[in-house]
């Protein structure tokens, strides 16, 4: 049958959309690279900010960012995996509790980050007495990342064919060993996707962190010190500091590089994991 004009038009429109996505990504990268590339060197990566961030580097800010991510993931991953297992393995679909938990996850995923900031400030900084600290910021981010981690781990668990579970049961494996030896390894790629999304959301965050981890650009000595993240630093340099644009672009370049690096590592890990699974 001859390809109709509508078919061809539709195909063209789809390709246009796809190229637009590529163009936007390319533009952002090009812009950030063009403005920041000349300023990023070893001194920038290893130095402390001087003169309100207009001079010097971003080392303490990088360390705070990584620490906040660390706290966030340490808390979000165990809770997230636990909740995902509960929802997909132990909960039955029709149950009221399961539906309620799913609904609250959707609500959590849709809450604007500034609300998480105020919540984190009230709960972690004040009620629990952690003050402006990397811990408060990381815990607030964990609340934000949880829905992403839970949802994608659940997807990962659901992608394991039900025959595997039946086979495990037929072999007399307990539920726990089925979970530990079969389901969780199989769901790892899903979990990794959730981690990458969660890390992305966490790295992008400024509003929630201004109220929780704070604004201090000094070297953190423990996770109970206040620490500024890269996004907060970029925001402050471009909005509050006259003449801060240069280092703001350079910091943006580092942030983008960090994100791309984390994404690549995660997809590499997922590949390795998948190959192992197939051999098993």
């Amino acid at each position, binding site marked *: 049958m001859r390809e109709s004009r509508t078919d061809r038009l539709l195909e063209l429109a789809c390709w246009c959309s796809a190229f637009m996505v590529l163009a936007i990504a390319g533009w952002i990268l090009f812009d950030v690279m063009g403005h920041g590339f000349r300023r990023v060197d070893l001194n920038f990566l290893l130095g402390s900010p001087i*003169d*309100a*961030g207009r001079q010097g580097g971003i080392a303490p800010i990088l360390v705070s960012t990584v620490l906040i991510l*660390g*706290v966030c993931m*340490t808390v979000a*991953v*165990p809770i997230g995996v636990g909740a995902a297992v509960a929802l997909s393995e132990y909960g039955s679909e029709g149950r009221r509790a399961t539906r309620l938990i799913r609904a609250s996850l959707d609500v959590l995923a849709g809450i604007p980050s500034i609300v998480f900031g105020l919540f984190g400030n009230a709960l972690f900084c*004040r009620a629990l007495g952690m*003050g*402006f*600290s990397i*811990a408060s910021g990381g815990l607030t981010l964990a609340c934000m990342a949880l829905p992403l981690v839970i949802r994608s781990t659940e997807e990962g668990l659901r992608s394991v064919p039900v025959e595997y579970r039946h086979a495990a049961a037929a072999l007399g494996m307990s539920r726990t060993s089925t979970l*530990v*030896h*079969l389901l*969780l*390894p199989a769901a790892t790629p899903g979990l990794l996707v959730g981690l990458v999304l969660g890390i992305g959301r966490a790295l992008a965050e400024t509003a929630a962190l*201004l*109220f929780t981890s*704070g*604004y*201090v*650009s*000094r070297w953190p*000595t*423990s*996770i*109970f*010190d*206040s620490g500024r993240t890269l996004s907060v630093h970029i925001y*402050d340099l*471009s*909005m*509050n*500091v*006259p*003449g*801060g644009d240069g280092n703001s672009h350079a910091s943006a370049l580092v942030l983008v590089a960090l994100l791309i690096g984390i994404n690549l590592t995660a997809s590499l890990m997922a590949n390795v994991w998948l190959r*192992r699974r197939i*051999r*098993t």
Partner: protein
Amino acid sequence: MNENIAQTNPRHGLLLALGLLSLLVASCGQSRVTSQSANRLTLTGSSTVAPLATEIARRYEDQHPGVRIDVQTGGSARGIADARSGVADIGMVSRDLKTSESDLLAFTIAGDGIALIVNRANPVTELSDEQVVAIYRGQIRNWSHVGGEDRTITVVNKAEGRSTLELFLSHFGLENSEIRADVVIGDNEQGVKTVAGLPGALGYVSIGTAETDAARGVSIRLLPMGGVEASVSSLQQGRFPLSRRLNLVSSLPPEGLAKSFIDFARSAEVADLVAGLAFVPIRP
């Protein structure tokens, strides 16, 4: 072999998680000690003052080893609230205190003024106070009515809660509800960028920011206010009509570290930092 992989992986994960958790607990115990010590000072408040306070704090820390001064941001209103509630030792406020805030003590560390800015491509060199009011009320909508080209005026206003907004409104006797703004912005640099990108824009930002950016070649021009040139030097001479003071506030008479820091922030030792951030040093 294969079974081996399946068995070890989750355990590794668990071990790692446990390790990280114990690290968390360990650092918890450690930090309790530092946060209780008397060598720690917390400042919160105005995002305009925060970069300056951070730099002053860094210099103070260099001169007094062992002291930690944490500067947090969030706006003048939060500086007032946190100084009252004791969440912060010192609040940062980028305006004079109101009569309803007379329970607080204010210590001026720098001066700042507000300048009207237009795009450099705009030929208009001066606006009278009446014209500014009419433009912000939406009664004049085209630059040709005030001696410029035939171009629609884009009115750039500051967001609610910004002290620049409060100062601007009270100087011109305006209510925020009367203003017909096309663009609402937050921080000074955002205002500069907005006006630099729109040939028909009229906005107002901190003088120091505008002067620094204009000197760096950003496409904006400062308009004189009430016939007085908008510049840091006319501000310093006290001639510029639209000015404000940047204050540190405290609910009790400061003592110890807080007093020492406030005295330092008001001394000539930090004048270069104040000027470096495009504010006007106070005269001791």
